[in-house]
């Protein structure tokens, strides 16, 4: 690293003073190095058991479609032996019925009868008191870290008994482990900049989350690289400013909304309303971040459904089942029909120290 953070801090301070418009005297930039749904699965949150693995669920689908046990056994035997690997997949991927005709359940999820997958009913979920009702919130969780009650995170409830989504901050959920592997390679890096008058003290801070022009820089082992420099994408659509405070080393901040472009082929956008962030600096200088808000559940569903049958069998499990869970547990922003269009959600990010520059503008990396 050519410049220490402290050194850069002083340079930035000098430049800002020279410009006589010091919005904040100190800035620290980080780059997102991990992203997943914030899950706090434990042994008690699915009292009826977790939902069946996809290998079992697809056989249940065949039965629900009217295939006899003997027919299912015959098809399965042919599949296992390699004689016919297509038939079951073709039936399952076209299991919806629209006007009597088979349709795929990914684009037409309501063409499938609700498989009534189980949702989680545990006590804990990471998140924020988004509805403002606090402990009186009818569906509130307790945050396992802050122990705040009345936390709204219906997305964790919706997916909490799906095997692919279960996990903790330390034991990554399968789906998100797989997804992060894609996101870090297919979308530009996210930059998180914390600014304040003196970040060593409590006080007001600004948190900016924006996109870089470059993708996440990696070490030779594939892990995210520390202290790399990124150019800030000038596209205003992916620039989010949260205002908040730092108290005892924890930053909490809010913004009316958050929007980050992602990848139209995987997950079109990451959008939240009533967005909140909670940031904590770790001993190794990295950042732990919780970001939450109300997210359009259609965005979430599309991010699963975009991959169709491949996603269903490899990473998400029953897609129509997820559709019904999201639709049922959505808890904000009713549409014209009165159905809620958004669901409370919280995501967990980790970030490494980094530097950023604004292309075309004189200055130094911050």
């Amino acid at each position, binding site marked *: 690293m050519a410049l220490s953070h402290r050194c850069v801090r002083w340079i930035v301070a000098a430049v800002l003073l020279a410009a006589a418009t010091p919005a904040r005297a100190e800035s620290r930039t980080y780059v997102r190095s991990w992203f997943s749904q914030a899950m706090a699965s434990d042994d008690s949150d699915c009292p009826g058991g977790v939902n069946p693995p996809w290998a079992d669920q697809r056989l249940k689908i065949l039965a629900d479609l009217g295939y006899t046990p003997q027919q299912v056994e015959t098809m399965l035997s042919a599949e296992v032996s390699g004689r016919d690997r297509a038939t079951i997949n073709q039936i399952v991927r076209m299991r919806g019925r629209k006007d009597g005709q088979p349709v795929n359940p990914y684009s037409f999820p309501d063409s499938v009868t609700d498989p009534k997958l189980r949702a989680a009913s545990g006590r804990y979920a990471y998140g924020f008191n988004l509805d403002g009702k606090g402990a009186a919130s009818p569906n509130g969780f307790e945050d396992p870290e802050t122990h705040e009650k009345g936390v709204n995170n219906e997305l964790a409830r919706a997916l909490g008994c799906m095997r692919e989504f279960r996990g903790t901050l330390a034991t990554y959920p399968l789906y998100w482990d797989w997804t992060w592997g894609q996101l870090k390679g297919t979308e530009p890096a996210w930059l998180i900049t914390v600014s304040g008058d003196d970040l060593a003290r409590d006080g007001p801070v600004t948190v900016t989350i924006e996109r870089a022009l470059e993708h996440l820089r990696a070490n030779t082992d594939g892990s995210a690289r520390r202290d790399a420099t990124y150019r800030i994408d000038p*596209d205003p659509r992916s620039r989010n400013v949260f205002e908040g405070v730092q108290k005892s080393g924890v930053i909490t901040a809010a913004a009316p909304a958050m929007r980050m472009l992602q990848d139209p082929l995987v997950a*079109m956008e990451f959008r939240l309303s009533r967005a909140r962030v909670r940031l904590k600096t770790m001993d190794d200088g990295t950042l732990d971040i919780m970001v939450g808000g109300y997210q359009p559940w259609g965005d979430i569903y*599309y991010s699963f*459904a975009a991959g*169709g*049958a491949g996603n269903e069998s490899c990473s998400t499990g029953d897609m129509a089942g997820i559709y019904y869970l999201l639709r049922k547990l959505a808890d904000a922003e009713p549409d014209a029909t009165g159905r809620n269009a958004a669901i409370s959600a919280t995501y967990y990010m980790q970030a490494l120290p980094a530097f950023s520059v604004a292309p075309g503008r004189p200055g130094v990396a911050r």
Partner: protein
Amino acid sequence: MRMRLGLGLVLVLSAAPAVAAPLGEVATPPGITLEPLGVSQGYELGKQTATFLPREQIAYADTSGKTLYTLDADPAGKSTCVDACAADWKPAPVPRGAKAFGRWTQIKRGDGTLQWALAGKALYTFAKDIDPGSVFGNSPARFGPQRRNGAGEVVGGRAYGAPAPKDLPPVPGWTPALAFPVTSAVLPTDFAVKEVADALALVLVTHDAMTVYALDGKKEPGKSWLPVGAPQLSSAVGDFAFNVRADGIKQWTYKGRGLYTYALDLAPGDANGIGADKVMDVAAMARYFLPPNVTVQTTLARGKVLASDKGLTLYRREAHIDQTGAGHNLRRGQPIRPAVGREIGLKNARCDDACRKHWHPYAAPAGAGAQGQWSVAVHPDGFRQWAYQGYPLWTYDGDAKPGDMNGNDDSMYAFSGMAHAPSGVAPEALVDIGTPQDGGIGLYWLIASP
């Protein structure tokens, strides 16, 4: 072999002209278009083509994209396909006012009409070619999901593992007229000719596929330009000769111009040397037609982009493709699929009144017609919109200056049972425009790369 050679020229075997014209003439006259053949039309939706769609064969075509052919038996400058033959093989007409140039000449037929000829050979379309990119009646739609082709016949939809469809055989005596691969040039073995999209041209490349540039003049360019060395025992081939440099090493020349690569071209297909030095230009064998009101600009993150005459980025409407894990956000991370672009067209672009407040069709000038990779999409009200490789082009009013791409990736998805879908569009309305039958359905705006 690329090697850094000594500076300075001591012997020029092929004198360069004092003021040289750009290398490479425009590839197509008015009324002649270019269509990639086979899978490169983009019907096929496999993960391979979602990431990279090879353009291995590019045919000359008429204004509707029908492949052009030559008749082996035709003598130079004359068409012998008349009467019954002409019912199946229609002459490629010359638009009013179009002029002959270079290898493109015009043949006057018995009925007085003018027919295009390439290198003296009359050009025809084949009646059994229905869709653009067809050859000898074989539509590229057969590679994709089941659909009706231009003649209303059901094609495609081959099940996984099913045998490939049996193609119609070539018609003896007829040859597709191909713009690429280039077969007309005599090349030393050190070179090939490749399509370099950023240069909008078919360009000489080195053995490792790096773009080759030609020096206009005799003054040695800066150190970013690396002379292309010739084997010491090489001899002149066609338009290729060599200079002997101060250190005794030979450097290839083409039409008398010293050949170089550019140090800041990092990968095959790069043409970052364009505009870097006014005496250097790509060593083009043919240049693609570019409308006079279209420019090429550079973005911060995605390289070259087509732009309006004011320099504002042009966009195409794209449809979801199952590209899981691939590089949509990388430069040229999403292949151009002409079949999908045509099918999206105007109607399926789903740009309603609200959309039109921000997105504006980019106008083709009065009198403009199909040429090269460009065609004109005509709106119901008569408005004429430029289309590039099948995709109608749009500008976005959130862009303020050249290189802005603030509309890129603006997207919408659709699935059933969702009244608040951003698009307000039922999936049935989108499902057949390049989207797989078993995955997500969506439309988005994408910058129009050359």
